[in-house]
């Protein structure tokens, strides 16, 4: 019965996601149309006559009313067809399939880094509040949050790539081609992206752990003769796991957005590059497609987070 109800809950959540997708793509579509210039100007090339531009608009249906254009796009998208790029003619789905793995690799690595550095750091800080470790960790965390990731990215490039030549400065290799090479390329971008994440995870871990460690049941555990370290690492961490999962989910979504800048610094052909180029050239089918994909990813991540929270915390759901 528990499993059946879980499936119902997940199904309901997915249904609720549909309006979010429509709203997000509609807003982006509207913003694109509000901007001056359109893709027809680019397509027509330099020195094109107004008649030529008008003709191109007609060919691509850009002269139709705003809502009709959006409706047409949505209708196709609902049937699994994200249309083609107006500029290159490539299927948008194909572009996304090519770019997304690069972005996902960086985000996944950054997230992993943030967690494996942030959680122990936060726990160590919480073990002795206001101790030396705590002060040092929290100062580092403040720096991590304050430093902009594009700046950090450039510093990393100048040190690790240009001066010491340890990692490549730019570019990316597909994971499917050579995993080792792909990871090697992704390390610096992931580091640049992870700094803020590490800081946030450390702070959240520390804060929630301190909350838990001051709760009544910790006194019971001490009265039972448990080691302080057992209480912190076993009971403390499991109790903060729900908080950490939520933070992780949010962090994933934010890192996904932050890749736009970092990808630009490292010249990585990911989702960030794809959407920025398309937006500059008003290639709205590509922009719409990327937004659509991102919204779906975010919704799925949120759903996954909730499901995981329910498995960790016996009080949630069921």
């Amino acid at each position: 019965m528990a499993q059946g109800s879980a499936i119902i809950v997940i199904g309901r959540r997915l249904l609720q996601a549909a309006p979010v997708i429509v709203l997000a793509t509609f807003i982006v579509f509207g913003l694109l149309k509000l901007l001056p210039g359109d893709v027809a100007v680019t397509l027509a090339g330099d020195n094109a006559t107004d008649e030529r531009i008008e003709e191109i608009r007609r060919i691509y249906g850009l002269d139709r009313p705003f809502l009709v254009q959006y409706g047409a796009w949505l209708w196709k998208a609902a049937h699994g067809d994200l249309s083609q790029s107006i500029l290159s003619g490539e299927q948008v789905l194909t572009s996304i399939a090519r770019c997304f793995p690069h972005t996902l690799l960086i985000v996944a690595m950054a997230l992993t880094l943030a967690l494996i550095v942030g959680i122990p750091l936060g726990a160590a800080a919480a073990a002795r509040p206001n101790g030396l470790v705590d002060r040092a960790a929290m100062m580092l965390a403040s720096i991590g949050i304050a430093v902009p990731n594009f700046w950090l990215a450039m510093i990393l490039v100048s040190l690790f790539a240009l001066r010491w030549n340890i990692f490549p400065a730019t570019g990316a290799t597909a994971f499917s081609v050579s995993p080792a090479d792909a990871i090697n390329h992704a390390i610096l971008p992931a580091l640049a992206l992870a700094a803020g994440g590490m800081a946030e995870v450390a702070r959240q871990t520390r804060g929630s752990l301190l909350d838990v460690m001051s709760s009544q049941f910790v006194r019971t555990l001490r009265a039972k003769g448990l080691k302080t370290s057992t209480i912190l690492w076993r009971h403390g961490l499991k109790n903060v796991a729900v908080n950490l999962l939520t933070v992780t989910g949010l962090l994933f979504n934010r890192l996904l957005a932050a890749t736009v800048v970092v990808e630009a610094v490292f010249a990585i052909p990911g989702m960030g590059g794809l959407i920025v180029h398309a937006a500059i050239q008003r290639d709205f089918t590509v922009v719409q497609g990327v937004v659509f994909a991102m919204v779906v990813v975010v919704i799925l991540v949120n759903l996954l987070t909730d499901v995981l929270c329910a498995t960790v915390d016996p009080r949630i759901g069921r």
Partner: protein
Amino acid sequence: MSISFAMAGGRQEATRDVTFSVSPGERIGVVGESGCGKTITGLSLLRLLPEDVAHISGRLDFMGVDLATCGQEELRGIRGRRIGMIFQEPMSALDPVFTVGEQIAEGLRAHGNMSRAEARDRALEALRSVGIAAPEKRYHAYPHQLSGGMRQRVMIAGAMVCNPQLLIADEPTTALDVTVQAQILELLRDLSDRGNMALLFITHDLGVVAETCTRMLTMYAGEIVEDADVDAALEHPLHPYTSGLLRALPRLSARRSALPSIPGRVPVLGQMPAGCRFRQRCPFAVDGCERPQALLDAGNGRRVRCWRFGDLALPGVAA
């Protein structure tokens, strides 16, 4: 033993000269108003007060070990294994994300090497011994899935699983229904009888003490004011404060008559009157009460902190 707290504006003495002994199988009720120091006395026995602010002076002798000064590892070996403790609110006193069985078993595993299976069997045994039906099923329950009474039984099972020689119970029944309360009290009494375990029962409920305990310590403003067998204390209290507490008990037979109460309130920390601390609220206060009061021997193992105890014939619980 005295406990003081480092507070803004200097050290404040929370309890003073709390001296008592507990023998095996004895059940001592510690009573007094809120803030009289009974809870921190209980916590201090296991050094559960925050060590950076709370300072314990004096000795806490437990079978030859001074708990006030022994090392952390030695203390840890005594906590849970030789002295158990249970608390008032069993919901918040249990970890919400571990099953109750795991929480009992880990108390066992904290003391000595024990396989998981063995700890599990012992935990099941403990659950059974506190009267939980279907322990195999309850073992896997989370605290929020159990009733208040059931949770307190789980707490007791967790505290009893290592067969401690002393169990400190801090208001264990205050948060429970009256009927459940009676069951828990009976359970504690049984467990103490069965294992010859001493019980230190901290409560403000004199009825609970009368029902459960053999001896009663009355505390007032951080001091022990009376120490006597329960029956003696209830029938012939020697300290005016004990007497006042007893007379303030509501009785079903005396409906509609005004309930006597003790006028005034407990003096706050840092503003303790010199001499007898109860002097300002005491109807029998005379000149001389402002002198320091020692815990006097009143014969038959009784002690009382009132120099006039021989002159006063105080009312106890009306028979």
